[in-house]
């Protein structure tokens, strides 16, 4: 019965194609990135020499950076599904459907959207494999090593579906679907800690797998790495929202235009939500400056005797991780913003009636995301530079190009998120047109 109802509800609604296309594109991007990184990682895990551990650890970090935003993407996609079917789900409740039935239908839709996106992601991964295969590690192109066995690809597809279902159910805790409509549940705390748990879980699972295959020493090193990485994530998650609140508070006081006032107040309304969208960038940005300066300096000082490619490889890995992380944030921002617009569709329609130009609403929305993103990316980079100042100071003197490259990659990442945000403008225009 639930399947039949879900199929009936899958007919086109009034919110436009973007609300379906965005999560599909987002899941496709995530899956393609996930498969590509796992593809590269399988090559690293085949190595057994002294330097292999560095490559393997880097691969695990990259995987964690991908899996964490995947969960928030799933939650956002389910919120979007609930919003897109707003009136229909409310009618179902009126007709006597239980909250469980409605939750299952919404989660089911999220899983289908995730799977459609994931299958697209496999196609993107296969199409990009020849280009990715050209990336050199240890002086040799990865080549066909990035191609995964079909069973692993299927396992990733299954994993994406399971994660989408789990995060959909978690995400729906923030939404009330009642006979009177769909609205946000204001008092439910956002499950930030879930991200850290997932991050640590992934690393622990990796350790277990490594333990089973006999690489005990590496498992210990990875555990230390996991604790350090998870701990940093936890600290950033605690401090980040607080910093955003302080900055937004000052911006709200000084705001001289409607868009600046709206953006600052939106961030102040929930600094945690603002942080949730861009927090992933903090760790990446921190790592990029830290590793980037170290590698740049080491390269200038001379090659590693045993592995002349090591430093260059680490820099390649850092750049790939930064770009992938920003891509994930861009996807997450796109889906979150589409859901947020639908959450407030009545308000946007009323503002359009008052004569507020869509451009003003768009600029306000853009600032709401981009301002915390800039603060997070630049702030984390500056903190990293200060923390390892002797290192960054020396890098500025002896290998400035290395820092310039990291700055350029961070700027490109910020531009990527801007594009993700821009993709949701049709959703806003449609909401405003419903005036």
């Amino acid at each position, binding site marked *: 019965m639930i399947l039949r109802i879900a199929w009936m509800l899958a007919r086109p609604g009034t919110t436009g194609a973007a609300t379906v296309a965005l999560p599909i594109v987002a899941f496709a991007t995530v899956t393609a990135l996930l498969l590509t990184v796992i593809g590269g990682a399988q090559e690293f895990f085949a190595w057994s020499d002294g330097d292999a551990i560095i490559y393997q650890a880097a691969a695990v970090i990259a995987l964690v950076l991908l899996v964490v935003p995947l969960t928030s993407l799933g939650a956002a996609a389910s919120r979007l599904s609930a919003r897109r079917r707003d009136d229909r789900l409310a009618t179902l409740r009126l007709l006597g459907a239980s909250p469980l039935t409605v939750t299952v239908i919404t989660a089911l839709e999220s899983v289908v959207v995730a799977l459609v996106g994931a299958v697209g992601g496999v196609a993107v991964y296969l199409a990009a494999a020849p280009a990715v295969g050209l990336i050199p590690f240890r002086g040799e192109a990865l080549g066909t090593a990035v191609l995964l066995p079909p069973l692993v690809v299927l396992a990733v597809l299954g994993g994406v579906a399971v994660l989408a279902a789990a995060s959909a159910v978690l995400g729906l805790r923030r939404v009330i679907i009642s006979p009177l409509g769909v609205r946000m549940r204001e008092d439910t705390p956002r499950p930030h800690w879930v991200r850290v748990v997932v991050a640590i879980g992934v690393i622990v699972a990796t350790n277990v797998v490594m333990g089973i295959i006999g690489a005990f020493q590496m498992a210990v090193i990875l555990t230390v790495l996991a604790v350090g990485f998870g701990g940093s994530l936890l600290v950033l998650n605690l401090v980040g929202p607080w910093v955003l609140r302080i900055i937004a508070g000052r911006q709200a006081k000084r705001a*001289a235009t*409607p868009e600046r006032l709206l953006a600052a*107040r939106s961030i102040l309304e929930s600094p945690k939500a603002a942080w949730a969208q861009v927090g992933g960038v903090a760790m990446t940005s921190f790592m990029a400056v830290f590793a980037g300066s170290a590698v740049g300096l080491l390269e200038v000082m001379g090659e590693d005797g045993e592995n002349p490619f090591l430093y260059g490889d680490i820099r390649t890995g850092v750049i790939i991780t930064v770009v992938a992380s920003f891509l994930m944030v861009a996807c997450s921002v796109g889906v979150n913003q589409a859901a947020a617009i639908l959450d407030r569709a009545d308000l946007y329609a009323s503002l359009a*009636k008052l004569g507020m130009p869509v451009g*003003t609403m768009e600029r306000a929305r853009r600032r709401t995301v981009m301002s915390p993103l800039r603060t997070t990316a630049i702030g984390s980079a500056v903190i990293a530079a200060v923390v390892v100042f002797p290192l960054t100071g020396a890098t500025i003197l002896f290998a400035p190009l290395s820092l310039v490259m990291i700055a350029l990659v961070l700027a490109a990442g910020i531009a990527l998120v801007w594009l993700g945000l821009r993709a949701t403008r049709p959703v806003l225009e449609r909401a405003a047109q419903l005036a």
Partner: protein
Amino acid sequence: MSHAILHASGLSKSFGATTALAGLDLAVEEGESLAIMGASGSGKTTLLHVLAGITAPDTGRVSFASPSGPLEITGLGEQERSRLRREAFGFVFQSGLLIPELTAIENVALALMLTGASRAESEREAATWLATLGLAGMETRRIGQLSGGQAQRVAIARALVTGARVIFADEPTGALDSHTGHDVMDALLASTVGQGRTLVVVTHDAEVASRCSRTVHMRDGVLVDGKVAA
């Protein structure tokens, strides 16, 4: 001699197979309070939207007696109509539809800031209007910290702060209990027609309509009668 501030003629509007307006004519006199009544689906909200330049009619025209001369709203593009709504018209909706993350004074000031006024000047004007509507001391409260009646007064202040000459209200008391609704209607009338402005109200409520100077009834997209209150 007619002093129509809004004049509509031959208005038609359909949404798919549904006809909302079917060749409707209406003149709204300057300084009057006009109630538009009718059953659900009779076309009254569509009429309000067309009069205010929110929706373009399929046929017909609406002209507005602006201070600089007659202006045909139906001949304006979307951007010009938006500007007209920002600068010459004010709106009060059933559920206020205020921005929840802004304070009361910011919600009101925002309307003036959208016309290009500075924030300081906008907040000064907003504070004056909030005080006029009995909300002095509540300027920094957020919308969630106000009662339904207080929030609706903030919405009225927002509609008036730009110096709007015509205020459009869509079921302004529909979400309030009768006592609060009566008070809100008092405030709305005093701050609009009481100060020479024009008020157009869409309502189901005969009590609200009875307090307006004129009531028109709609059925199937046309006016079926009109009467002037005693």
